[in-house]
């Protein structure tokens, strides 16, 4: 059981850290441009002779960092809002309504809207992803908290005059911790995929950053001239990384298995 969980995580972290170790700057090499994959350039080179393997690794690094930051932020936002919802019935209605509102637009449209408003870039993408991924986890946490509030020990603690934040810290948080972890691991791959999509569309990170979405959208111009490696390998690497993480997340979820309420995450 633990093996299933740790091996993908280990591989995932190795790839991630590898991209930090290789601090080789990506050089232009106009003589060796447009080369198909070979032993010296495993992923081939692009139209400026840059090594695609290095570019891909850098892109993956950026994607993962972004994914971690946004997954963390939206988990925190979800926690905050669900706690707020239990604070009093009016807030509860408000939060439920906000969830409905955010789920009423397609994720990608909301993302485009927010990135558009914030003018794109790293900040725009992070805030956009944060604001589109919180509803799923908030819904789960809110349901959990509603149930938790009726528990005898929480009621007793309330009667004993403990304040809301005391109860939140001593009763709610320890109970919600596994949910938060699972929520985080489930949001993370989504955030990465959405980041790549939005960057691909041109609303996300700016063109000089080596994001996977940028690499792929640039490669589109060269596809018709048969340079398949420009699109194939970066995408494949991203896919591999996400699969590794999904394997970990799946095993991790089984490990913490509480109920089946996590199903929502796979919908959006």
């Amino acid at each position: 059981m633990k093996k299933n969980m740790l091996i993908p995580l280990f591989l995932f972290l190795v790839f991630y850290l590898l991209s930090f170790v290789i601090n080789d700057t990506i050089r232009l090499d106009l003589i060796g441009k447009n080369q198909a994959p070979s032993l010296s350039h495993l992923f081939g080179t692009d139209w400026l002779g840059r090594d695609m393997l290095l570019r891909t690794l850098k892109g993956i690094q950026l994607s993962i960092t972004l994914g971690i930051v946004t997954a963390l932020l939206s988990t925190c936002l979800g926690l905050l809002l669900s706690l707020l919802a239990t604070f009093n019935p009016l807030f509860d209605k408000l939060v439920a309504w906000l969830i409905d509102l955010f789920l009423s637009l397609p994720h990608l449209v909301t993302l485009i809207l927010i990135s558009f408003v914030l003018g794109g870039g790293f900040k725009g993408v992070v805030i956009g992803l944060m604001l589109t991924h919180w509803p799923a986890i908030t819904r789960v946490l809110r349901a959990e908290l509603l149930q938790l509030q009726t528990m005898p020990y929480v009621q007793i603690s309330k009667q004993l005059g403990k304040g809301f934040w005391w109860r939140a810290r001593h009763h709610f948080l320890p109970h919600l911790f596994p949910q938060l972890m699972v929520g985080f691991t489930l949001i993370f791959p989504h955030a990465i995929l959405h980041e790549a999509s939005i960057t691909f569309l041109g609303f996300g990170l700016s063109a000089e950053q080596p994001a996977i979405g940028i690499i792929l959208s640039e490669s589109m111009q060269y596809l018709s001239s048969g340079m398949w490696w420009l699109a194939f390998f970066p995408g494949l690497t991203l896919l591999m990384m996400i699969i590794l993480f999904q394997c970990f997340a799946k095993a991790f979820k089984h490990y913490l298995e509480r109920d089946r309420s996590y199903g929502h995450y796979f919908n959006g």
Partner: protein
Amino acid sequence: MAVAIIKKLLRLVLLLFAVSLLTFLLVSMSPVDPVRAYIGADMLLVSPEQRELIEAYWGLDQPLITQYLQWISSILSGDFGTSLIHRVPVIEVIVDRFFSSILLIALAWFMSGTLGVVLGSIAAMKKGTWIDRFVNGYCYLLLSTPGFWLGLLLLMVFSVWLGIFPTGLSAPIGITASEVTFGDRLYHAILPALTLSIIGVANVCLHTREKMLDVLQTPYILQARANGYAGIRLFMRHGLRNMLLPAISVHFASFGELFGGAIIAEQVFSYPGLGQAVVDAGLQGDMPLFLAIVLISALFVFVGNWLADILYLVIDPRLRKGGSRS
């Protein structure tokens, strides 16, 4: 029934109102200057006085609330404004694009729905065999695949190498719009629709499999098996209806994802639909078009969920009699 419909419509109006207000406020906060976006490169020729006149003409000097009220009231009277990139009324752009998008989305939706339910049922009926493992693996693989990358791969293989399908657009190049047949449109929509449906299968398939496994655990299935039913007959008589509900609700609820997927697929295949329009509008600051498409996408998602609710009633007779949802 009538009360339920009126309630739903009321919710829709409220929702669209909230979405419109929110998007309007967000867009008006954006760094894009509407005057500059409209005039473009000729901005240098416009003096500050002329600029003020333009702003006054458009009502940009008025408070936000007034602007919003004017915008919403003209939308209610059917006037969505003029698109800045296309220089025609927004409504024309949308009607034009809507058909292409709907064709694409409908194709993808039917393909992924049928395939998902079939694959999911087979996997559940053959639980534990290699078929089940294969279907499961396929679904998890697809859940991790970036949609635009899959589109690029299909484009490379089918259009560039094999040359079977066109590389883009929704009609052949070099003929007038009146000569384009439905067949042409369908032919151009196949590859983007394939991209969308390959990805879309995973969700439906996993849900179907899960629910089918639940159904197979129930006493009535045990009874049916004891009566000698097995395989396809058992599935048709006892399995299908019972597992269809969650699959349908998931598939209708995926309208939002589908719309998002369509944006990406349209961009990859340069297919002129709503998705491409919203990307262009966003990148070039064409706010009337942008706002209109945001509203339409909200409407689209809402209709999807609503249809799912109605289909529940059609499929499950227990719900029609006022019972609670199982």
